[in-house]
């Protein structure tokens, strides 16, 4: 299956990539995708502990099963709004 991966904020900064495609065998989970991304972009690894995942714009656990065409976002800790 083919997935679209989106990278934001510091994760965009450490990879230099905003969006990329990843091919994985059927049955793969978010955790499998994360491992594939760490191989391709080692800089993601140091943020792994604080990275959350969204599939098709909903937060999901690492164990979430992926399907062909899913849009997966890597979400660092959010910091919207002002400094208040």
């Amino acid at each position: 299956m083919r997935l679209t991966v989106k990278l934001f904020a510091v994760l965009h900064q450490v990879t230099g990539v905003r969006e990329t495609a990843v091919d994985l065998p059927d049955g793969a989970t978010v955790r499998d995708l994360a491992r594939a991304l760490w191989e391709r972009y080692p800089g993601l690894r140091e943020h792994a502990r604080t990275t959350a995942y969204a599939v098709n714009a909903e937060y999901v656990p690492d164990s979430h099963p992926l399907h062909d065409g899913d849009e997966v976002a890597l979400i660092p800790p959010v910091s919207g709004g002002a400094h208040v």
Partner: protein
Amino acid sequence: MFEVTPQPLDPQRAVAAVRRDRDGAVALFLGVVRDHNQGRRVLYLEYDAYPAMAVRKMEEVAAEVRARWPVDGVAILHRTGRLEIGEASLVVAVSSPHRKEAFEACAYAVDRVKQIVPIWKKEVWEGGEEWIEGSLVPVPEAAEPGP
């Protein structure tokens, strides 16, 4: 009204969007870019967002607000891109027949925006910059494996 936009935010539009004829109160919050943070002089901020998901999460915040207070309209607007000192990055407006509910609901909505909406700010200061890591988003528990 839920928007993620590179355009300047207009609080008056948010007020107009939330007010109903039965409402006597509109509480509004503006988050604005301030010139310092943790002792450092800030030059400007830059906001990144996942816009489609951010709008969905804003709708979720509004649904939480409505479940807790008898309020009418809820508007949440967030700006993206480079913002100078004094510009508004966040506008939250809540209308209600009564003022107490409007204030409480507005303050709650601001808290929740900062906790679950996928938006990020980068602080830029003299000679450096940093993406601010705010709230770890709450991830749902893994579903029980099937039989």
